[in-house]
């Protein structure tokens, strides 16, 4: 067992992180001032970190520096458009922010639409065109049949232009089953993700802080 030395620079950091972790965990018992302290510190430091990161990684090297040294004076335009976003804080000038928003939305709508069409729609449609019977591969055939049945029945469930009764109702109900299975899988993965985060925190408490195990 080798507890981190709080008098060293690294050790002090480990102690602060460990105590803040315990403060956050204390919420599991009930809300308390230690939890509030850790929560507010987290929000404040995160905001500060991201502002500094954006300044030094984006705004300064890509806008301020090229404009100041004259290498790319045109970068003043995105700089001004960025500043116009803050006009929303002045009610009479708030309309100016719409210009910036229009460019952001327009550019990203274009990028997302082409990306989705090329990367999702066409490719996924193409990947759905599967043979229902693959001679000599009964397992693959069953896989493909289930796959196609899942796609069609799920699409039928989301088809609201006709009343769900008769065959359409049955197909839609089958679609619900497929959806439920997918939700169950997603829930299982989510549980795994959250437990992983907990394990990560415990590994931190046991290794660099208390030194009772090595991870």
């Amino acid at each position, binding site marked *: 067992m080798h507890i981190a030395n709080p008098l060293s620079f690294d050790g002090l950091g480990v102690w602060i992180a460990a105590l803040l972790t315990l403060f956050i965990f204390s919420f599991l018992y009930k809300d308390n001032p230690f939890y509030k302290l850790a929560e507010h510190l987290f929000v404040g430091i995160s905001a500060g*970190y991201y502002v500094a*990161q954006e300044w030094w990684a984006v705004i300064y090297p890509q806008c301020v520096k090229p404009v100041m040294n004259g290498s790319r004076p045109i970068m003043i335009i995105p700089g001004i458009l960025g500043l116009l976003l803050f006009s929303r804080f002045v009610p009479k000038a708030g309309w100016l922010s719409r210009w910036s928003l229009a460019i952001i939305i327009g550019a990203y709508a274009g990028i997302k639409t082409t990306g989705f069409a090329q990367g999702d729609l066409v*490719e996924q449609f193409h990947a759905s065109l599967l043979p229902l019977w693959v001679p000599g591969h009964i397992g693959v055939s069953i896989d493909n049949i289930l796959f196609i049945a899942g796609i069609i029945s799920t699409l039928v469930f989301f088809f609201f232009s006709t009343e769900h009764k008769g065959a359409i109702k049955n197909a839609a109900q089958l679609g619900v089953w497929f959806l439920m299975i997918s939700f169950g899988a997603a829930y299982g993965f989510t549980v*795994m*993700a959250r437990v*992983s985060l907990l394990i*990560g925190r415990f*590994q931190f408490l*046991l290794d660099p802080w208390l030194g009772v195990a090595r*991870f």
Partner: protein
Amino acid sequence: MASLIVFLVVLAVVAGILAFLLRVPAVAAWFARLRGLDRRWIFVAVWVLVMIPLLFPLKLPIAPTARAVEYYEEIEKLKPGDIVLLSADYDPASGPELGPMLRSSLTQLCRHKVKIVGDCLWPGGPPLLEQGFNQVARDQFHYQYGVDYVNLGFKEGREAVILAMGNSIPGTFASDFRGTPVTQLPLMNKVTNLSSVKLLVNISAGYPGTKEWVQQASRRFNLKIISGCTAVSAPEYYAYLQSNQLLGLLGGMAGAAEYEKMTGITGSATKGMDAQSSVHLLIMLCILMGNLAHWAARRQGER
């Protein structure tokens, strides 16, 4: 298939026994009382089931799945000198899941003596990527910065950055994470755009990440992509495996542990899987008990 049938048979037998037991009034009353259980007892149980396996490992077996094997084999296909883009699109919040994937991927890449260009679409990513490079590439494999690997750091713009990299990587990242102009880095003289990259290894925590790389770069720039992602986002990416837009996938800590096993590393993911499995069993038990408690209470209400 056989294990699935055994599992379903066992499940049916257990359900039958429990249904029989619930007909006993005392048992039904006990189950019904579970509805009032203080949730903090569940937290205590989780705490115990995480702590004990971490301190006293159970060493449960880890079997690599086909997706993890495909991830591993895509890197195995690389030749010395090939250029790989390693995009670390995550921040410390996803460290327990994605940190082991980053370190194991770097280990396998360095074993094959490939050149690594690192970048980040998340502002919190560059220090984590730098730490991984220092621990693995520099300290273990004596990689030289600027010659064998570079850390280009973070660039704001999400999908726009990916598209820009498709045209020119040095044009998109004028300087690296340390502020050095990329023109002064010998490795970057060999890198033009995404077409000059043999493989993208994407460590992804969400948006922007694997989905955006697939949508914007896989077909448009014929980019081969493998992904190590958080468990939350893994189900969404399975569709991309089906369509071969992704060539391999590690999902969450389990995927990281499978990959560690293949690369011969006993890292934090492998050591965490005993706790992971223990808590999963607890959650399954809680779901079962919760349903039984609800069922028992309803039966009591009917009486």
